[in-house]
């Protein structure tokens, strides 16, 4: 009876409030957090590890780690950035374990003056990201997917990846150029 009532109320609460309830009153409230985030985190993990099953493992481990360390979360901060950070760490650990990472174009210098958004609309860029993302190195794949597909702000991406906001901007700009090259190559190969 108590659980059912609590669950009903939980849907109206913010992430941070649900976390506080999980920590102090009812640990089963954690299922609300899982419900809210598993879809988003699965999608994000899939962009990172390029594999459904591994992405599922990453997300499951991330939820378990998040629960174990829930008392270290500061409720004054954004829960989403915190949980995305855990998924990032888990994915990076997995990638290092399997060494499947493709360091494509990572060390090439690019002209920074080109603005890809002048040539394409936001929706077109988003489509390009979806199609060409898996061929990119993790360094650029991550900020790009967070920005265009997860629609996170620069500040949130900075908190998730623990890099300065300026670096987030630089990586996204470079990633767009790399993406354009990959997409163009893909088009040529198709034709």
């Amino acid at each position, binding site marked *: 009876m108590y659980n059912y009532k609590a669950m009903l109320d939980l849907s109206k609460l913010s992430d941070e409030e649900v976390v506080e309830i999980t920590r102090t009153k009812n640990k*089963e409230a954690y299922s609300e957090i899982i419900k809210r985030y598993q879809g988003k985190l699965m999608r994000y993990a899939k962009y990172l590890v390029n594999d459904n099953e591994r992405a599922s493992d990453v997300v499951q481990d991330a939820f*378990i780690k998040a629960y174990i360390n829930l*008392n270290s979360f500061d409720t004054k901060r954004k829960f989403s950035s915190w949980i995305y950070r855990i998924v990032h760490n888990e994915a990076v650990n997995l990638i290092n374990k399997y060494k499947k990472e493709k360091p494509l174009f990572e060390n090439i210098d690019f002209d920074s003056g080109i603005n890809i958004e002048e040539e394409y609309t936001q929706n077109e860029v988003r489509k390009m990201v979806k199609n060409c993302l898996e061929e990119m190195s993790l360094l650029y794949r991550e900020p790009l997917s967070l920005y265009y597909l997860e629609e996170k702000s620069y500040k949130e991406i900075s908190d998730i990846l623990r890099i300065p906001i300026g670096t987030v901007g630089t990586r996204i700009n470079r990633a767009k150029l790399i993406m354009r090259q990959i997409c163009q190559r893909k088009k040529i190969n198709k034709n």
Partner: protein
Amino acid sequence: MSKKKNKQKLEEKVMSQVKTGKISMKPKWYFAVGSLLLFSGVVSLSVGAIFLINLTIFTLRKRGPITCWRLQTMIENFPWWAPILAIVGIILGIRLLKKYDFSYKKNFVLIVISFILAVLFAGFLIDGLGLNDYWARRGPMKGFYQRLEPRNGFSKPGRRCN
């Protein structure tokens, strides 16, 4: 449909571990102790590095101008562990600083440079204030300092080189 099933599976897997107590939250004090240890680590590494730099300056000063030394004697007698440990302390301190949130929000290179300069400045300041000479004459560190002071083969402060 399979996506929905997968979602349910994931939720069930995690929640069953939560409900059965297979996984449990680490207590708040665990993280409080962690933060305290991190802070103490940064402070003690900084203080240690300052002390060792200050000790290096003291030893160099007591041995007089570098032209008066014979290279071999210097290599044999100089307490190299002091500057080496100071560098190790600074490196470890920087690694611990990286664990703080401000390390990625601010310019980390600037933080590192400021940290190194602050440690060096504090080392020189302690020597400049004459604390080393005071510790070498009295207090519990007297014996330790006297072991570092040169005996034969080095010029004494104020003495001319031959």
